[in-house]
């Protein structure tokens, strides 16, 4: 009986200490995504730390002069975890930055990839709110005064030192950059893209650095509530067509593989933009590939059909090679497929998430 009482006393004391600690936990308040918010540059190239999640997503195709094409991915993410906002520590994880880089070299047959992750702060990991400038240690993605984006990323197996020059104005997705992602009103993001970027720079493989040129796609997206609870993942494609057209297509899938939402856009070279809604985009898997490591089954070959004013248009996307799965679990990230795909001269990237397990953001 005494033991119970004394333990009770201890518990009560612990409670008192908590109470005496005073300051109740301050949870972060995430900014909502609202339609009609104008997108302005260069401000919106920079970070939006009040939102839960955000990314700078560069994918593209490059080739050494006279060589085989390769795919690459340089992506920076920002997330705002649910930590106590009252913590005055400079280490408080109020903003986390992480980045993935991958090189899809058919000669290797699988992705060479690496990642960086850090809590923002101390000048070691920062995302500017004024312009596009994200840094994590030795990795960076920065927009220069000449509007060219310069990225540095790499690891033990490869290195990417690439510059992306826009050849077209930014493409505002959805309604002026407000992009619905699900049936509920709040399920949306601020979203714009920079398709058809001219790539120059150098790729290092096996200790050998070579000059490359190519085409890339920069996706910028920030949001606080992106996914519907029923969603397990999404498919996304951003394709640069040879004539300068750009296709964006995505679908959010439920556990049965049925689309919960879909959307995208088609922009002609001269700038005419067609926004695509759920009824305008279909993804049809043509061939699946099973990862020997994770056993996840990915529809790596898909026919994407979009309804354009002049009629439906289908792109049959084939992967540069099958094994473009990226396992970022070591850095606390998900397992997904992010691969270079093409349909003839139309080249771009296909992203398949939620095929290993349910994706949460």
């Amino acid at each position, binding site marked *: 009986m005494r033991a119970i009482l004394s333990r009770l006393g201890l518990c009560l*004391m612990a409670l008192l200490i908590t109470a005496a600690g005073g300051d109740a936990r301050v949870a972060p308040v995430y900014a909502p995504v609202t339609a009609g918010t104008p997108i302005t540059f260069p401000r919106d190239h920079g970070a939006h730390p009040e939102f839960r999640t955000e990314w700078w997503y560069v994918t593209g195709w490059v080739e050494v002069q006279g060589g085989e094409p390769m795919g690459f991915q340089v992506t920076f993410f920002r997330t705002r975890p649910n*930590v106590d906002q009252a913590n005055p520590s*400079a*280490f*408080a*994880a109020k903003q986390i930055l992480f980045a993935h880089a991958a090189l899809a070299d058919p000669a290797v047959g699988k992705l060479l990839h690496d990642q960086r992750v850090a809590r923002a702060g101390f*000048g070691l990991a920062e995302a500017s709110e004024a312009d596009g400038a994200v840094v994590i240690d030795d990795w960076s993605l920065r927009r220069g005064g000449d509007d060219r984006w310069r990225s540095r990323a790499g690891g033990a197996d490869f290195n990417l030192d690439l510059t992306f020059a826009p050849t077209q104005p930014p493409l505002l997705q959805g309604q002026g950059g407000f992009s619905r992602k699900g049936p509920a009103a709040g399920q949306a993001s601020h979203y714009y893209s920079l398709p058809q970027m001219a790539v120059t720079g150098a790729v290092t493989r096996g200790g050998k650095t070579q000059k490359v040129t190519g085409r890339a796609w920069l996706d910028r997206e920030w949001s606080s509530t992106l996914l519907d609870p029923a969603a397990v993942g999404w498919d996304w494609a951003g394709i640069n067509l040879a004539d300068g057209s750009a296709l964006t297509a995505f679908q959010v899938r439920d556990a049965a593989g049925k689309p919960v939402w879909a959307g995208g856009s088609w922009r002609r070279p001269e700038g005419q933009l067609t926004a695509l809604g759920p009824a305008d985009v279909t993804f049809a898997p043509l061939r699946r590939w099973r990862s020997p490591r994770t056993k996840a089954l990915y529809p790596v070959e898909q026919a994407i059909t979009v309804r354009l004013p002049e009629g439906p248009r289908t792109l049959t996307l084939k992967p540069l090679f099958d094994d473009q799965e990226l396992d970022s679990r070591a850095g606390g*990230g998900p397992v997904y497929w992010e691969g270079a795909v093409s349909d003839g001269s139309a080249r771009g990237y296909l992203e398949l998430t939620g095929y290993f397990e349910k994706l949460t953001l």
Partner: protein
Amino acid sequence: MTSGSSARISLPAMAWLILGEWRTQPVRVATAAIAIAVGVALGFGVHLINASALTEFSRAIATVNGDADLQVASVSPAGFDEALYPRLARVAGVARASPVVQLTAALPGEAQGLTLIGLDIFRAAAVTPGLLGRPDPAPSGDPSGGSGFGDAGAVFDETAVFLSPALREAVTEGPSRRPALQRGAVLSLSAADRTVPVTVAGTLPGVAEGRRIAVMDIAAAQWRFGQLGRLQRVDLKLVAGADREAVQAAIARMLPPEAELVTRESQSRRSDSLSRAYRVNLNMLALMALLTGGFLVFSAQSLSVARRRSQFALLRVLGTRRRALLIQVLIEGGVVGAVGALLGLGLGVLLADTALRLLGGDLGGGYFSGGRPDLVFAPVAALVFFGLGLLCAVGGSLLPAREASLAQPAVALKNAGDAVDPSQRPAIGLALCLLLAGAACAFGPAIGGLPLLGYASMALLLAGGVAAMPWLARALLSPLQGARFSAPSTELAVRRLWGAPSQAAVALCGIVASTSLMIAMAVMVASFRGSVDDWLGQVLPDDLYMRFSGPSEAGGLDPAGQARLLTLPGVAGVHFTRSQPLRLSPESPAVALVAQGIRREDPGARLPMIGSPRPIPAGATPVWLSEPAAWIHGKRAGDWMVLPIAGGQKVFVAGLWRDYARQNGAVILTSEDYSRLTGDNLRAEASIALKPGADVAAVTARLKAALPADLAVRAQFARPGEIRAIALGLFDRSFAITYVLELVAILVGLAGVAATVSAQTLARTKEFGMLRHIGVRRGQITAMLAQEGALLGAVGVAAGLTLGLVMSQVLIHVVNPQSFHWTMETRLPWALFGIVTVALIGASAGAALLAGRRALSLDAVRAVREDW
């Protein structure tokens, strides 16, 4: 080849000679072998214990440090400015930098502390992956799950803490008796003067067994434990192939005084220096035991050679070469040594294993805390100690072997008596040289922080003392030589000792070697214990002592609380103290920086000062160094030194004081200076003077009630008598191995004496026959033998005591200050002297008596006839 085969002794003949000798003298051979075995066992055992303890210790350090290539660590728990972290991260050659908050923490009711580590898991993942936590599986029904970054919030949960397996077990089974700790269990953790409820989130699978570590988020640790803006450590991983020296130099240039660069090498040097002196001392004592074994082999072999003089002479006459005889005797010694050494290795493993289980890796010395080390077998060391045992035995046989081979066969064949002419005066020159060299060595300095010359001095003194024995025996007995004794037995005994000087000297060698070492050690331990006892009286002047359980860094009483205690009824006065570790150099262990309630004018009121304190220059901050602190850091009273606190503080060494509690040294500041320099005004210990007639129990209760609730749980009270008993208990525990060694030395010494005396007695069968023939009665011979034995013992004890006392002074004034950096006053354990004297004289007399009985049981006529 006939001449060749006759020149050597064939194998069967050799075996026959050796076995025959052993069959007749089993006790003596066994004693010699056991003496070697004991020496080897102690040496090897101590080495194994040390090796195991050091392995364990470095594993402990490696666990707390993870696998960092380099580390920048704060010199005190106060840490350094976190702005250093990004600067370190940008040093060329540094691949990753992981900032760390490291605090010593306590759980309520747990006496043993723990290390609380605040990590940035992203940085630690690259630098110290062994410190990453693994969340416990979520209870079923938890809606969260799946992959991605969604549960990042849980990782950064301000209250989440990951516990090492040992800590988890301790908390579950500890005095607080919590049910098995589940994810979500709440603990209150005290560190850096805060008590904070934390939630168990998971385990630390990468942390080695036995380590008590809790890991939480760095931001939470900074915030909850008042460390905002401070770090205690930055772990660094270098770029593959980086120039280590260059990186270290670049880092060293940017470090503030509060931080230092720690490499694996400096860390292992530090852990090594922590117990080096202690280990070397034990090893030296073991070598001394081995040396004693060597002397016992020498005396056994000498006697055996003396007894077999006619046997060897016969072999020589039959054509055996001198060389073959030499080899024969050396092999005899070698076999004894090999058997003893093998036995010793086995005993050593057993000893080490038992000691590790019972006393821990520091043999109770208190140098290592934490897990119990596993025994690590060391094959190279085993070979070395086997070799040493063999060497001692062969070395001990060398002189007798030479004597056997050099004897003139014709003379030796007839005469089995003493080969040395009794009318010749024994030489003293060599002994004097050895003794003088020993004395000179005693004044030498420490070499590499070790009293090697001190030990050399002791070895030389021992050798000199033993070499002086024939001369000394003659000198001590000469007064008796002229005297006339009414009892014929006494007359016979004295004449016999006088007439056979080398036999007496051989017996005395063993006695003196073992007695003097034993006495030296006993005097040293008694002096040490007495000094500690006195010192305890000086440092515990008050009536009641209070401290908070767990490590002292975990928290303390604030000034308001201190003032409250002072006003309690029954309390006449309270002196508060506080200490924190402070590293003055990367290679030596941390000293204790202590706040003590002393006045700068009169430190002697509360400190056992050595020498008179220096006048303190105006405006200077005085510190008082403990003896070890002054010695290790090369400071004397009147010097200035810089303390790496508050950006580096120049302080004045106002005096030295005696301290046996902290072997790595303590630096005392006045309470005011301590608070000013460290910004820490909490106190973790109090010594309380009571008003006359105050009831201790009542005051204790009042004090407890006046403490804040979190401290009251941890408060412990003790009377000075209790602390004294605990301290002396600790002392005895740390010297337990020494006591065991002493006992073994006494027993081996006694056995050696008994074996020597009985062998000598048995060898004199025909002498007794002769005496009986000329009318000496059996009883008279027995009395003669007893007196001979007693006289021999008395001479041995007198010489051994004197030599032992001289050697104890080397231990007290040279070896101890040089290895432990503290001084003591000589105390003589008179009771032990008495016991040793009586035991030795009794043993030699008794052994002679018993052997004499056996020798006399033979028929007198047959005894004389045995000659032919």
